[in-house]
């Protein structure tokens, strides 16, 4: 029993998306460092945008990898991406200003080893396996680091493990009210995993179009940003968190509308069905 995975041809070449995704997410994550330079928290939302850029790239990589037919379902690729990515992201976060770059290097090592294991030990023998798992680990790591930076306003480890709470009017430093201490990192992990594994899984099949799949990926990314923005109210000041929330909601609404448009464009026919209403007084 096998189901053939069909993907559409054409669209932007994968290598160009790779460069856009890698450079884009790197620059966007570094923009959150403006928080530290200017002493404010208004630039936190760039972390979420970095995650969206990485997710777009990751979706195209998953499409590339899964067109070979892994036999395990598309979500497994998203799970290994975030599984190796979360380790790389937290190791990278300990290196201060170099965090995003170290994250990419560590993720490439872990992903590369997983790829070599998959091809040479487990014998998947898929030509793009090593490159894809390396890319996916970087995508997962950048997603986690981006969303963590959006929550805490910084990607530095000490900022992620310490927070403040107010008890009876006194501001108390505590490790429990932090992104890692409060296990928000687990929520980030799952939000990233859902975002990365959904879009191609939903769009694959005959008539798959790259722009529609990537639009859904962006939509999933912004959708994951919304809960992160809400969580960030607990860690950063009210106004910066509100800006994050507005950016995520506007981004989600725009990409959702665009996705529905593209879905209607690619559909054979569609019917704007209304809910079935019970007739008054019963039938």
């Amino acid at each position, binding site marked *: *029993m096998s189901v053939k995975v069909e993907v559409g041809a054409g669209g932007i070449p994968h290598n160009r998306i790779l460069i856009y995704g890698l450079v884009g997410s790197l620059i966007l994550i570094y923009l959150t460092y403006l928080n530290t330079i200017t002493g404010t928290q208004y630039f936190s939302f760039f972390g979420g945008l970095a995650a969206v850029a990485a997710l777009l790239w990751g979706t195209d990589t998953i499409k590339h990898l899964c067109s070979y037919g892994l*036999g*395990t*379902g598309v979500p*497994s690729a998203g*799970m290994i991406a975030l*599984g*190796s990515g979360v380790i790389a992201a937290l190791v990278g976060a300990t290196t201060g200003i170099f965090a995003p770059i170290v994250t990419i290097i560590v993720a490439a090592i872990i992903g590369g*080893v997983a790829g070599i294991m998959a091809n040479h030990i*487990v014998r998947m023998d898929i030509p793009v396996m090593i490159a894809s798992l390396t890319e996916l680990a970087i995508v997962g790591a950048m997603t986690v680091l981006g969303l963590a930076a959006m929550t805490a306003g910084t990607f530095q480890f000490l900022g992620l493990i310490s927070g403040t709470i107010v008890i009876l009017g006194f501001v108390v430093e505590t490790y429990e009210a932090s992104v890692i201490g409060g296990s928000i990192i687990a929520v980030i992990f799952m939000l990233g995993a859902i975002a990365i594994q959904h879009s191609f899984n939903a769009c694959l099949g005959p008539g798959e179009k790259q722009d529609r799949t990537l639009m859904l990926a962006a939509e999933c990314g912004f959708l994951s940003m919304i809960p992160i923005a809400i969580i960030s109210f607990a860690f950063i000041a009210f106004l910066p968190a509100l800006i994050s929330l507005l950016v995520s909601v506007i981004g989600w609404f725009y990409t959702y509308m665009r996705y529905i448009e593209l879905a209607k464009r690619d559909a054979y026919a569609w019917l704007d069905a209304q809910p079935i209403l019970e007739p008054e007084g019963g039938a």
Partner: protein
Amino acid sequence: MTALGGPKQTAGVQPPTGMGLAISIILIIVALALAYFLVQMAGVIALVGIIIGGVLIAFGVHFVPVGGAPAAMGQSPGIATGVAMLAAGAGLAGLFGGAWAAPFGFGVALAGGAIGGGLLMAITCTMVNVIYIFGMGIPAASGKVEKDPITGDTFPEYKSQGTEGHGLPFISWVGGVVGGVLGGLGGTLIYLELVEVYQTQLSAILGATVDQIASVAISLAGIFAVGMFLMNAVLAAYNITGTIEGPHDPKFKRFPRAVIAAAVASAVAGIFAIGLLELVGVF
């Protein structure tokens, strides 16, 4: 629709390549040496624990009866979802059980993890059969063997034509529980090793008591255990390529490949996890 059933359903097991084996041995030795260099003997013990945990997870995944999309239509035996999802469910349930029992000591925590994972799989397998038998009206019949190795029930007369079997025979039920026990045990072992490393290191670096940093140590160890769990489970899933019925399935014999791959992947991810705090405050 999830794509199940890869392109390479070749008979027999392709052995790992020589290059792959050489890289595996080198990587494990390098990781152990680094662990000794970074955290001395405690690091080596922790890394060995992590590698054993990873191997247990990858081995345990092979016991779990995974049916995938065909099972949802009653056309192949097993639980109707992918390997990575099932393994994650069982392993994480075990991990939570083990993490909860961690204060009661090493042995109790390991037992708690194993029972947690096994219990989740026992409930899942039982309810799957309840739905198959009373909901869909199909008997349990394996397509891979003539007789159940435990109960001695025969299958061919119950197997519908055109299917690979259906339902969840007793041997698959037992396999599921064993898989859950091994997965929960492995996940808990990784967690316990990491939490010990972090509790000593964090309190030294931050100059805080173990109680103050407990939440950070637990959260870090938990998320890393989840990440490594998913990496190992997906590598094992790639080894299975699609569906497996349990320990009686011919595909079960492939497990040595997944065990090697998981050992190396755990060693590489583990060394980053153990060395996580070495760079804090350097930059």
